[in-house]
């Protein structure tokens, strides 16, 4: 069934279709409507889940961890400062191998106080052991919630799906809601082999000495290494089910492209529109959409960008004292492979921080700059900075 809905409600529908058992969340703009809708669904009996009201995001994650450890399918949603407050428990939940799914609505961190979109909040959690997926439209948002559980429960790792504040969260567009029956076939009930059980008590997350901690970390990384393939398959299988396949990275007009845009989130959508315009003019611009950011899909990125000359990375984020974060990650993936000769020039653009509007003209300017410049001269190219 198709429906015109806002991105936040697409998240709620995704959670509902995933038949989550426990929802624990704390309200924060621009995420609030996600849990508002879920709490209503619980109250109306349309969703058979326990909704836990909590006093902070830290408690929200703690509640989800308890629910997940006890074998429940747990869901939460947050944004910005709320996600920052969860940071400690993000390590704890991945270390505990708990397949929690969280929606994060990308919002800038304050001060200056700002409720508009920016990717820094989620990207700053890149080292916590959570998988991350970035969404381009509301359809992808709904679908990604469901796929996230599929992936998380196979890997015993938590997954964060990310959508842009307002541009998706508060924007209405057409979303196709899959049939519950189809999703039930795709996502069977969560039945972990090891779970907290008062009748058979075990210690979870206890002390591990240097003798074994190192190996425990190795195992987590080993699982992360398997994640791209698991995620790819999950997207493929989902596509067979509902007719919308997803991949961890998605090329668009890439094969013959002279300039490749690399982006995530709604910047991808804007870039597609610009690429269409350039292609009409005969200019070969292409795109690599990063759906999955953690683990970084290094192998696929290397394959898809092999032989490319110029790459424009668009970052709506910044790692202070360094550069845009996608830019860093992409460089790290492509260099040091002992094939320096073939490495492309990578241009790093920072744009739209704190929700400043990114227009098609802005993207076109990025493409033109990249086409024009012989080689990259600076680590950050500031777009639209009022100098």
């Amino acid at each position, binding site marked *: 069934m198709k429906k015109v809905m806002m991105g936040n409600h697409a998240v709620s529908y995704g959670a509902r279709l995933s038949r989550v058992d426990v929802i624990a969340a704390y309200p924060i703009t621009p995420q609030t409507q996600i849990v508002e809708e879920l709490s209503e669904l619980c109250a109306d009996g349309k969703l058979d889940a326990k909704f836990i009201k909590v006093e902070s995001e830290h408690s929200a994650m703690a509640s989800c961890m308890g629910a997940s450890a006890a074998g429940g399918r747990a869901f939460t949603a947050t944004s910005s400062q709320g996600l920052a407050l969860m940071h400690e428990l993000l390590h704890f939940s991945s270390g505990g191998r708990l397949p929690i799914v969280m929606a994060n609505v990308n919002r800038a961190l304050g001060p200056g106080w700002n409720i508009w979109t920016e990717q820094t909040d989620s990207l700053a959690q890149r080292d916590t052991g959570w998988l991350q997926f970035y969404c381009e439209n509301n359809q992808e948002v709904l679908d990604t919630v469901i796929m996230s559980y599929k992936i998380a429960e196979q890997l*015993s790792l938590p997954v964060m799906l990310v959508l842009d504040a307002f541009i998706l969260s508060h924007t209405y567009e057409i979303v196709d809601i899959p049939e519950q029956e189809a999703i039930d076939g795709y996502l069977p009930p969560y039945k972990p082999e*090891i779970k907290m059980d*008062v009748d*058979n*008590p075990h210690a*979870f*997350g206890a002390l591990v000495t240097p003798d*074994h901690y190192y*190996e425990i970390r190795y*195992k987590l990384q080993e699982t992360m290494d398997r994640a791209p393939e698991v995620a790819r398959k999950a997207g493929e299988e989902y596509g067979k089910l509902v007719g919308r396949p997803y991949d961890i990275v998605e090329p668009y007009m890439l094969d013959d492209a002279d300039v490749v845009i690399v982006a995530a989130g709604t910047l991808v959508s804007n870039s597609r529109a610009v690429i269409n315009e350039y292609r009409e003019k005969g200019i070969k611009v292409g795109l690599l959409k990063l759906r999955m950011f953690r683990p970084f899909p290094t192998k696929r990125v290397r394959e898809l960008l092999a032989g490319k000359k110029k790459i424009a990375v668009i970052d709506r984020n910044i790692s202070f004292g360094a550069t845009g974060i996608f830019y860093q990650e992409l460089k790290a993936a492509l260099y040091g492979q002992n094939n320096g000769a073939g490495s492309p020039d990578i241009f790093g653009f920072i744009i739209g921080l704190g929700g400043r509007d990114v227009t098609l003209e802005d993207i076109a300017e990025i493409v033109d700059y990249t086409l024009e410049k012989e080689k990259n001269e600076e680590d950050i190219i500031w777009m639209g900075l009022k100098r």
Partner: protein
Amino acid sequence: MSKKITFTSIADLPPLVVSMGTTEVNATGSWRYLRPVYHDKTAPCIEGCPASEDIEQYMYWAARGDFDKAWEVLVEENPFPAVCGRVCYHPCESSCNRDHFDQSLGINSIERFIGDHGLEFSLDRFKVAEEREQKIAVAGAGPAGLAAAYHLRRLGYQVTVYEKEEKPGGILQYGIPRYRLPKHILEAEIMRLERFGVEIKTGVQVGKDIPWNEFLQHDAVFLAVGVHKSRKLNVPGEDLDGVIAGLDFLSRINSGEDVSLGKNVAVIGGGNTAMDAVRTALRLGSTPAIYYRRTRAEMPAILDEIEEAEREGIPMEFLVTPVELIGENGALKAMKLQRMELGEPDESGRRRPVPVEGSEYVVEVDNVITAIGEQGDFTSIPEKLIEWGVVKSDAFGQTEQRPVFAGGDIIEQPHTVVHAIGSGKKAAMAIHAYLNGGDIATLADKIHVGNKGGVSFLRFRDGHEGDPVDNHEVVTFENINTSYFTRKDRHQVPELDVKTRITNFEEVKGTIDREAAMDEALRCFNCGVCNMCDNCLVFCPDVAIKRRDDRFRYEIDYAYCKGCGICVVECPRSALSLVPEGK
């Protein structure tokens, strides 16, 4: 588990950080030096109730909608819930911990609902422990006498109550007006006692119709004849036509007599008799007013009654006292009043009214109703039992002459219905102990609830189930974990509107409905008594607490309880205590 597990490779490691064996091997109970125990305490309402009703328990059942059980719990201590639910001054509510949180629990209105429920469904599941041959006589069928008879009957004795008036009930029958206590309610509650085997003989005055010596032939006797003589004003003109004693006035009205009053009726006094008299006079069509020698704050009447009188538009003149009643041809015409001011506190702790020189003034009155206090008429009681105008007795109503016991208004205690009921219960226990060669004083520790003299019949007959109870530890507001309660106003009691009610003797206050009674009972903190809220079980970090199969609480597995005390802290109602290990 004694074997040490060694991982030699990554493959050996479990998939997540989890112990290989069960944590049951780790008997954390060995760390404990403080032991949590389920330890019931006394709720302040119970301590505050002179009849020691187990309020907390009947709230537990009322909140769950089991009003049969609530009624049983209530009548364990007090045979007249429908009466007390109407006329009691409810000191329980002023003791209620909830008062510090939002508003005290509406105990009186719930008690009334439960009492009415008992009448509606003719509940009378009383049990007589074992029939005994001993015969006990009670003088006076007021609340004290009937309460004593009720409890003695439950203990198996053959009880006869002698009442000098035509009908039983005492002050309930002849003092309290119908608009506060309809006769059919009172009579239904008394009839229940009769069905239960309490014999009531009316129109028989002990010391007159039955000689004192004959009365004493019983195995034990209980004196509860009440006080019925209104105190005199001791001013000139008191014998004029139109001057009426308050209690006589109420008694005549309650007996169905026509009492004709003039227009201007002055009621002298500030107690319950004064309020009853003035509101009755209003209903008879007069324009009555209260004259009281102190201020409103010192009035001894129940606050509710004062407020109702005010609502009914009755004027109250404070700091005045009559100094002369003025007549014409033997009939009352006017009253001379003198203004007073408050001086030093007297022995009652209230400031003593002192006359203001030259402040006299005169008001025209057709009637004066005196209600400045009552005293006993002890002409039929042996003089040696009397001292300072009361029957000398100890806390359990034991006089110096065996087998004479006494209670109600004739002993030294506040003149309220609920104190009378409490004294009847205490005397019943004392008589039982006496007849069995024991001494009630030795049981005091076991049967007292709280530290204000109240006693529990349930504990007296050893009926308390469950874990040990500390009768004397009363839960304070500080002991309540208020995080678990949300603020909520108490339910309002339905009332007749003023215009209608002052034209007749219809009952002014109504009974709340079943939903309101349940909802109101849910407001109860259940101070000091476990109500199986599961908080301890949920919070125990060692999963050492389990529900027991019976209703009464939980079991702590001390092999794992490490004595952290979280259960004690998280108990909303202080039903757990932490005690040093080894004691």
